[in-house]
């Protein structure tokens, strides 16, 4: 009676061990990727939200005028890049996304943002802020808000 282990049995055993190891490693890698994505998502969401807040502030800036000036709600359509520097909100029309620069960002990752403005007949402006990065392979992160025509509030 042959009591030894055949070559085929050894191969099957090694195959099973290898498969279980690969599955194990894959799980760990997926988890690592998810966490890395969470970091990236957090930064991109912050930048998209920052774009919307700057757009709200840009609309609100129009009320800062001497009392005798006439101020109208802004009408705007198309794609724009928005940034904040030197105490000013800069809005520039653009055909493509613009790089977002902030202090201390990692040199190997670049973030890009573009804002789309659509003004409707009631002067409400729909704003979509889209952000992507050089290491982000999925569709851009998009946040949307509606800016109603500004008005000062008299309590």
């Amino acid at each position, binding site marked *: *009676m042959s*009591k030894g282990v055949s070559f085929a049995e050894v191969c099957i055993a090694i195959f099973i*061990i290898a498969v279980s*190891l690969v599955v*194990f*490693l894959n*799980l*760990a890698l997926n*988890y*690592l990727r998810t*966490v890395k994505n*969470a*970091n990236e998502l*957090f*930064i991109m969401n*912050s*930048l998209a*939200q*920052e774009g919307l*807040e*700057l757009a*709200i*502030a*840009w609309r*609100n*800036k129009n*009320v*800062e*005028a*001497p*009392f005798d000036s006439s101020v109208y709600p802004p009408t705007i359509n198309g794609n724009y890049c928005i940034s*904040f520097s030197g*105490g*000013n*909100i800069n809005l520039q029309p653009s055909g493509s996304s613009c790089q977002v620069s*902030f*202090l*201390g*960002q*990692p040199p190997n990752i670049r973030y890009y943002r573009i804002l789309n403005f659509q003004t409707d007949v009631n002067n409400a402006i729909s704003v979509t802020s889209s952000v992507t990065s050089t290491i982000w392979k999925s569709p851009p992160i998009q946040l949307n808000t509606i800016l109603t025509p*500004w*008005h*000062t*509030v*008299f*309590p």
Partner: protein
Amino acid sequence: MAYRFPIKNKGFTVLEMAVVILMISFVLVVVSNIYTNIIRTSVSLDRRIRALENVNLGTQKAWRLLKYSWDIQDLGNGIRFKDDNCTQRTIRFYSNNILIDNTELFDPNLVKVNDFRVAIDSPRTTEQYAYYQYAPKVIVLYYNLELRERVSTSSLIFQQAVAPLNSLYSVNKCR
């Protein structure tokens, strides 16, 4: 004539046993090494997720406070303002954390703050008859953080902007 049992060679030689034990121990070393590394990475990533959630919670708190703020003053590495109840509040960088008044914004076991800066926009007019003429329309917060993992740390640098809702009022209710 005495019956003789057939002798079967049922045992293993020392060499066979040695080879098998060597192979098993080799597999065990490799597998346990991989397993330990996976567990270590998993614990480390768990901490990073917890740190990220802590940052998310903290920045949302700062955002909400500033969204309803009045009388905003830029302190460079912090900001002084009045909340919706007209109580004086301060958000400032202090000792590797951000303090809201005297309360730490982030859990120091999970997050270390390397730098925190604030910038506000400049008004377009020098007139100050109405609050909306001089109230800041945007506050930009710059965070340079380190998420503390089990043995190492990972950096998280980002900006947050807040457009205060009260900046369109004509009268400053807190003055």
